[in-house]
């Protein structure tokens, strides 16, 4: 068994030279997975079958490029996706590509590969990208994430057509028809936060209150952020100046005092499913949410679903804003197959791929390119026909995220610590003085500025 040859420096050098010569001289032989392996940790979609379309696209790309693609779908329940990303970032090993929610690209940007080449190719081809996605995916002008279609969502109004007609005499389908070309500015301009409050009071009196969460989860943070933006509230500006003590903040909080009085008292304890259940139960007349509540109502309470219409948010003194929660793909800097990873990201971001992904999610997933908001899916989904047409931002509606325009590291903390909704809850539920609430918020915001 003992080897006759001895391991000497001369022998090693001789073998290495022969091996190199053979590698150079041999013809390029492409095996089934000649270009290696790419492992992906992707968000587990709640829409049945939606994962299959993404898997199909990745496998198509893998077959063309001789790369073995391995996908783990990771749920966001219990923040499992964020925990996995945090563990991989800290350990410096794991998947090659992961999907990240909301602020996670900012959180992990130090271990994420710059993706300027991919982002610039896509922007060059498909035009402007959502400003919220750009804000979340770039750090000092460098792209560290590529906006994903899968999971990306906005949270506009989901309202009961019948109840708004009966108690407020408002025909939402006429105001927001399923065709942007037919939007009538005279009608849409009337849909303001003042009108919304008036409707909310009437619906409350009628026994069908609106349901606006005021806990510390993203649905609450997103709609309050949209309302704050519509009123011109800035918490921290781009230069780290704390701006929360302003006339705009006071106006918005005074408005919210009236609005929260006509919400059910339990909204302070709702998680992200609380408002969905409120609408599905038939007790509620309006929530601010993606069409997930409507989709579940289609199964559990079809009468409610047939009367739900998705439409833009009310307008405020500074414009009409809707909360956006984008998802992104990040390529770890410790990935062993970066060029393949970038190529896959390009492939699944092409219009043809995005169209399939949007269709698979029934229109729930929103592309971040404005030029891709013309797919048929949003026109054909029913009942009622066209209910999700105005779910993507249309007309004068702009996307927003709580924390912006502060630098993203600061914004991430404002958002994740739900400073805006805690402020509102202190004032509306805790009945604390307005000045005390603003002072508290300023103190908390100062905390977010620490380097």
């Amino acid at each position, binding site marked *: 068994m003992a080897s006759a040859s001895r391991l000497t420096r001369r022998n090693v050098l001789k073998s290495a030279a022969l091996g190199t010569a053979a590698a150079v001289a041999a013809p390029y032989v492409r095996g089934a997975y000649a270009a290696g392996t790419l492992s992906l940790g992707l968000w587990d979609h709640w829409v049945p079958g939606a994962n299959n379309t993404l898997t199909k696209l990745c496998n198509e790309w893998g077959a063309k490029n001789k790369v073995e693609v391995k996908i783990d779908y990771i749920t966001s329940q219990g923040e499992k996706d964020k925990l996995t990303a945090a563990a991989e970032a800290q350990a410096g090993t794991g998947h090659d590509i992961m999907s990240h929610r909301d602020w996670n690209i900012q959180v992990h940007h130090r271990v994420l590969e710059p993706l300027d080449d991919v982002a610039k190719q896509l922007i060059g081809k498909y035009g402007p990208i959502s400003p919220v996605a750009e804000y979340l995916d770039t750090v000092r002008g460098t792209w560290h994430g590529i906006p994903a279609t899968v999971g990306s969502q906005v949270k506009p109004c989901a309202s009961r057509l019948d109840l708004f007609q009966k108690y407020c005499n408002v025909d939402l389908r006429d105001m927001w028809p399923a065709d942007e070309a037919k939007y009538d500015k005279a009608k849409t301009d009337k849909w303001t936060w003042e009108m919304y409050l008036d409707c909310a009071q009437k619906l409350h009196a009628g026994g069908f209150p609106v349901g606006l969460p005021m806990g*510390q989860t993203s649905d609450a943070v997103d709609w309050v952020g949209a309302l704050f933006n519509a009123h011109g509230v800035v918490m921290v500006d781009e230069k780290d100046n704390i701006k929360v003590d302003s006339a705009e903040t006071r106006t918005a909080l005074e408005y919210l005092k009236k609005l929260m009085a006509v919400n059910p008292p*339990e909204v302070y*304890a709702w998680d992200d499913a609380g408002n969905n259940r409120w609408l599905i139960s038939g007790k509620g007349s309006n929530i601010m949410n993606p069409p997930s509540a409507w989709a579940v109502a289609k199964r559990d309470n079809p009468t409610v679903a047939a009367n739900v219409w998705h439409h833009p948010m009310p307008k405020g003194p500074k414009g009409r804003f809707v909360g956006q929660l984008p998802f992104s793909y990040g390529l770890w800097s410790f990935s062993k197959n970066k060029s393949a990873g970038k190529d896959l990201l390009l492939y699944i971001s092409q219009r043809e791929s995005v169209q399939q992904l949007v269709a698979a999610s029934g229109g729930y997933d929103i592309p971040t390119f404005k030029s891709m908001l013309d797919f048929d899916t949003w026109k054909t989904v029913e009942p009622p026909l066209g209910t999700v047409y105005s779910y993507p931002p249309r007309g004068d509606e702009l996307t927003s995220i709580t924390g912006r325009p502060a630098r993203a590291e600061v914004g991430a903390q404002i958002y994740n*610590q739900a400073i805006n909704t805690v402020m509102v809850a202190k004032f509306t539920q805790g009945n604390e003085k307005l000045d005390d609430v603003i002072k508290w918020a300023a103190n908390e915001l100062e905390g977010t500025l*620490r*380097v």
Partner: protein
Amino acid sequence: MVDAVQQTWTPALAGDRAAPRGSMQRFMRRRSTTAFLMCLPLLVIIGGLVAYPALYAIYLSMLNKSQTHFIGLGNFRWLLSRDVFQMVVEQAVIFTGFAVAFKALIGLITAHLINNLPAKGQRKWRGMLLVPWVIPLALSSLGWWWLFDPTHSAFNYILEALGFGEVPWLSNPYWARFSVILVNIWYGAPFFLIMYLAALKSVPEQLYEAAAIDGASAWQKFRHITLPMMRNIIAITMLFSLIVTFANFDIVQIMTAGGPRNMTHVFATYAFMLGIRSGDIPDGAAVSLFMLPLLAVAAVFVLRGVRKRGREIG
């Protein structure tokens, strides 16, 4: 058995001395070397899964937010100046104080009740009362959350059926504090029950018989026999429960996620919010380590007392 082992070892050692072999062989034949090798798997596990993570967490808690430089105790000083963190400390103390006290009280009462049952029925009751402790906490917390559901609470359904008003179990911060403490007591009381029951069974019956002859009342028996005999187990159980309750995560995270208005956060949920959700790992590590010195001091005193009493009894 010991003799047999000694007989096996002695000639080998003697042989070692008689005919010296390689130093490696001598080293491997030493009794301490064998003991060390047998303990090695345990040492590796403790080192890898306890010591290293603990030391790494301490190291992380002393870095700045971007983990680029060492700032000593800067994160701890910073946390102490924050309103929300002060509230977290207050809430954690209330949560732990009430929960441990009631768990101990309920455990003590139920242990006595079960101990006084006829032997035949004891096993059945013991099994049933242990159920809350056996069910995975995340699962039972979810069950409780459904009972307290802000909109469709089963408890409120019953209260309304009986003609009472609804209780804002999770939407009012004070009721929410009550609810999370209640669930912790429900979950933890069986642990006290089983420990106290074991302690009660170890008290010699003769002591009670002697006290009865002396005309001692039930309270006097409890005060002067049962409690002193149970002191060690009470101290250890309370210490263990104090540590575990301070570190609780599942109940608060599932039921309230720290809300409303941050008023139900405990150290673990607040650390999760700062470290994982907001990406400030050093601050999150500092929050989770905050109670370590206090609990370590408490543990030293409690365990010293236990050792002292053990020597006295011995």
